[in-house]
């Protein structure tokens, strides 16, 4: 009999049921996603506000950029599907399969990051900086790099999380719930990209 049992007088403390009947880790991940959504929402509000308020807002994106962004979208959406397949395998206790799909997801994420950096390099080569650009309002560069940079940071963080949790799941240190939490974060990144593409890129397509 433990000291705690003696102290409590054999009364076992009852745990309150978890809100929404989901594991605590999953609830914590949802709450984190909610807070992160507010961060992105603030960025999008600032972006929209300044874009409307600025008379000389440039529209510099030509079809080459649009094609590149669509390829990035295809890769990220595909990685969402592969991550869902990883979770599906994990729920069937197919650890090898789950890890394989997680690796494929990570591969797609790495390709996305490379293309994103390539896109940035293209803009930098054209003279776009955080405080200047050759076409119009200097705010364009600041907002473009800030919003897309925040998305890129989340993708990189997601890749690191997938690597750690994926390896941990394969070695049975983590459970399928942990992999599922990584999936939530990865899908959240995809959802944010769905907002970034039309409002940062497509609304600024050159006439």
């Amino acid at each position, binding site marked *: 009999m433990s000291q705690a049992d003696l102290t409590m007088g054999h009364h076992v403390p009852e745990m309150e049921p978890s809100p929404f009947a989901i594991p605590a880790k999953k609830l914590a991940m949802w709450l984190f996603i909610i807070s992160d959504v*507010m961060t992105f929402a603030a960025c999008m509000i600032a972006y*929209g506000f300044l874009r409307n308020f600025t008379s000389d807002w440039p529209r510099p994106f030509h079809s080459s950029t649009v094609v590149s962004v*669509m390829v990035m*979208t295809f890769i990220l959406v595909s990685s969402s599907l592969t991550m869902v397949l990883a979770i599906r395998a994990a729920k069937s*206790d197919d650890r090898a399969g789950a890890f394989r799909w997680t690796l494929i997801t990570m591969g797609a994420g790495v390709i996305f990051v490379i293309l994103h950096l390539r896109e940035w390099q293209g803009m930098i080569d054209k003279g776009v900086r955080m405080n200047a650009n050759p076409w119009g309002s200097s705010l364009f560069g600041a907002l473009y790099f800030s919003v897309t940079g925040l998305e890129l940071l989340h993708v990189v963080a997601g890749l690191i999380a997938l690597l750690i949790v994926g390896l941990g799941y394969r070695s049975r240190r983590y459970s399928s719930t942990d992999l599922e939490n990584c999936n939530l974060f990865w899908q959240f990144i995809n959802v944010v990209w769905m907002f970034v593409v039309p409002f940062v890129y497509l609304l600024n397509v050159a006439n």
Partner: protein
Amino acid sequence: MQTVEKQRGIGKYLIVYLCMLVISAIEVAIAYRHIDGVQMVAQMMALVILSAGLGIMFFMNLAMEKRSMIIAAAIFALFVLGTINYGWTDSFRLVSGAPFSTYH
């Protein structure tokens, strides 16, 4: 001990995946149409909400959670979308002059 779940087919996920790609293609088509800026934003926003909704409900498995969680997520999402759309339209208010503004 983990319970092993028998998994259904992946047809549902493939349909959602294809829908998201089609929505992205439609957004590109809208971007190249010569329409009013407000109309373009409204159409893009509608498609984005649809795409994001599919991702959240099926890829994040929110549709499989308890109804109370879905309602909580929906209320939060509406709040975020409301603040975004208020923020953008508020910029027009500043440009054209807020009520009782000293600038005319």
